[in-house]
């Protein structure tokens, strides 16, 4: 339970606050329109459908304001930088930005549906009032002209159009109606192209269609310009509706009941969304500026299994361990930006990414680079970033157990290199004296470059007589008959047959009890930090083991579990 509070508590709190604001806005504006005196006559025509339309409108204003903010990733990076003092949990919330964006989008979708249905009812009832279907008061109210010294209440002014088509005609000839239909259509297209199936397989459709949000916001800002939600204004002498509502035939002829005047509400949506819209424009400008900044290739290496390593240099670029960048290559696609975790350490004077062939874009990039002559510069590349929470806790523990599963091993390249640099320079920030690294993967294809990195580190450590600093174990969980045959034949070899490393490959999953026992035995008095980048199921297992093998005695070994989403 305590662990949940530490890991998820702040997220839960933020969600509760957000939902609370939504509910508050909905209820407040519902009662504002349902009980407000100035809307008495309007309610007479529309009933509670008025309030049911205006309450979601308020929630929509709030959420349309919020939705642009989580996708301003440069702004978020800036915030993250200034939160360095305020603890990692705060900064980690900024990494859940896309989840929040989706949540807000669902709310917008839901509220749009409620808003639209309520307005369908409103338009129908306005239409009926206009045609005298309802009581005398309704007809009298609807007959109020928009001329001379009278102001109208019912926005449906003419009765020329066929009665059944009037609502459609009304919607398509008023600003509110037309913008409403257009932006709802844009919203629906955005939502259908954002479904996970489409997003994962045809990213371009998702990304290009998503730009309909420009139309959405443009229409949204003008949606209220027609001012068709009308409220009663004070007149001189005042028109008391309680007294006058039954005397509608005498309006204007008796002193107590002058003709009631109405006016539309001032459009407010733009006040909610203008700020985030400006911020977003800055965000796109900033991305564009970063994109034009010069990025030079220090080195290009084609690794085995179609992995491309790019070492890039960009002036003013500063990174932390475990962060990622977005890359854009205009020669392949003008508009696509793809994220890659960085595999270099901050101590190096360049940053590197390892790109695996995993789709159109990556394949084209690899093809382009393969055809380059030796030593030539690669294609023009735009770099945005770095983004992501830095994983600095890794340096705080005396003993670290690092577990990387599958693709989760990539940030550990950065971490291991950084630890090694800090160790060599005797950087006081580094308190680590011993590292146990567990690498779990189905097969080592596409990760041979990581094995190379481990080899280099292994060699350097041996040279300095620090062979004990790093202990690593590779677990191949996807072995089969041919593997075993191969291993049996090469059993006596000095280096491992799969990786070429001195430490042997294990097959199957690790026996965590044995591993924790070993760590505890070798470090009887230390505080051990366990870091995982991998699946949630494994996180649960490791968490339990950490609890199991931690000793209550403060002089003995203690294990602390950190689940990272790098």
């Amino acid at each position: 339970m305590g662990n949940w509070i530490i890991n998820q508590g702040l997220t839960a709190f933020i969600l509760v606050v957000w939902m609370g604001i939504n509910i508050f806005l909905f209820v407040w504006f519902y009662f504002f329109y349902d009980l407000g005196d100035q809307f008495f006559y309007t309610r007479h025509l529309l009933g509670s459908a008025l309030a049911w339309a205006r309450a979601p409108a308020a929630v929509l204003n709030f959420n349309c304001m919020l939705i642009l903010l989580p996708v301003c990733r440069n702004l978020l990076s800036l915030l993250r930088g200034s939160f360095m003092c305020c603890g990692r949990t705060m900064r980690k919330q900024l990494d859940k930005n896309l989840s929040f964006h989706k949540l807000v989008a669902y709310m917008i979708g839901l509220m749009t549906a409620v808003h639209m249905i309520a307005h369908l009812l409103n338009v129908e009832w306005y239409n009926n009032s206009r045609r005298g279907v309802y009581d005398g008061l309704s007809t009298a109210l609807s007959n109020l002209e928009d001329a001379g010294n009278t102001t109208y209440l019912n926005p449906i002014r003419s009765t020329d159009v066929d009665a059944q088509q009037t609502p459609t005609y009304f919607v398509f000839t008023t600003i509110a109606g037309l913008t409403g239909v257009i932006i709802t259509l844009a919203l629906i297209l955005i939502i259908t192209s954002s479904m996970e199936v489409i997003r994962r397989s045809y990213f371009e459709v998702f990304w290009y269609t998503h730009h309909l949000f420009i139309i959405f916001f443009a229409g949204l800002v003008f949606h209220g310009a027609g001012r068709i939600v009308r409220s009663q204004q004070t007149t001189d002498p005042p028109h008391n509706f309680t007294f006058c509502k039954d005397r509608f035939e005498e309006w204007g002829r008796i002193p107590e009941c002058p003709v009631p005047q109405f006016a539309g509400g001032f459009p407010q949506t733009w006040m909610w969304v203008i700020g985030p819209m400006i911020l977003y424009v800055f965000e796109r400008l900033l991305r564009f500026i970063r994109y034009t900044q010069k990025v030079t290739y220090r080195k290009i290496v084609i690794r085995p299994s179609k992995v491309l390593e790019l070492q890039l240099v960009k002036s003013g670029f500063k990174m932390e361990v475990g962060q990622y960048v977005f890359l854009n290559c205009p020669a392949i696609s003008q508009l696509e930006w793809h994220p890659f975790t960085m595999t270099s350490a901050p101590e190096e004077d360049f940053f590197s990414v390892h790109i695996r062939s995993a789709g159109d874009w990556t394949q084209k990039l690899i093809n382009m680079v393969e055809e380059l002559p030796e030593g030539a510069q690669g294609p023009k590349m735009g770099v945005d970033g770095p983004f992501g929470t830095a994983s600095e806790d890794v340096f705080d523990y005396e003993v670290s157990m690092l577990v990387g599963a599958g693709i989760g091993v990539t940030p550990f390249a950065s971490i291991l290199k950084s630890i090694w640099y800090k160790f060599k320079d005797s950087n006081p920030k580094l308190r680590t004296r011993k590292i146990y690294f567990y690498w779990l993967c189905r097969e080592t294809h596409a990760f041979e470059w990581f094995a190379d990195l481990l080899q280099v580190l292994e060699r350097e450590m041996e040279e300095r007589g620090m062979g004990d600093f790093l202990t690593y174990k590779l677990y191949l969980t996807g072995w089969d008959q041919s593997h075993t045959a191969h291993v049996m034949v090469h059993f006596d070899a000095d280096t491992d047959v799969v990786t070429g490393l001195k430490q042997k490959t294990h097959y199957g999953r690790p026996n965590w009890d044995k591993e924790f026992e070993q760590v505890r035995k070798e470090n009887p008095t230390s505080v051990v930090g366990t870091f995982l980048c991998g699946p949630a199921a494994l996180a649960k297992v490791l968490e339990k083991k950490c609890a199991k093998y931690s000793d209550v005695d403060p002089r003995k070994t203690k294990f602390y579990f950190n689940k990272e989403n790098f």
Partner: protein
Amino acid sequence: MGKIEWAMWANEQALASGLILLTGGIVGVAGQFRGWQFAAYGVAAGVFVCLLEYPRGKRSKGTSVERTGQYCFTVCVKSFGPLTRNYYVRAFLHAALCVPGGFMLATVLGCVCLGISSLIYLGAAIHGEQWMPILPQKEQTRKPVGESIKNPPQNPPPRPPAELRRKRVEDLEGAAYVNPIAVTAND
């Protein structure tokens, strides 16, 4: 744009349109709007479109993700053969279905959305896509183990006597021998 299968997006759009048409129809009927007959049509057409579009088709490249419980719908839709397999038919069908929705405000949005999905289906049809049902894979039978495993050898393998087998480091060349009887299985 890569190998986009437009039908996947058309399917999402059509399913959404069906729901919107259905919702608009329900509002029109429940509120007893003018022209509620068109709303009633919207309900029927909406339900029909949802049933038709619920089962996802099989992707020609990559893994297809089923919608929950779509198997019975797949079977129904499959039974119409070329009518449901061909996307030109679907494009035309959706275009025709959406027209009556335009006669009443409550169903107008459903009409426009269905019209858009009809256009996307047309694009899919022009690209030669087809609706293939996602059917459960038949169990892959494992390669049957060879018969010889049932007959383990009765005798130890033929070897020369122990003195000859001992490793003679001084004379590696002379220590090598050829087996008098073949020891590989397929000679």
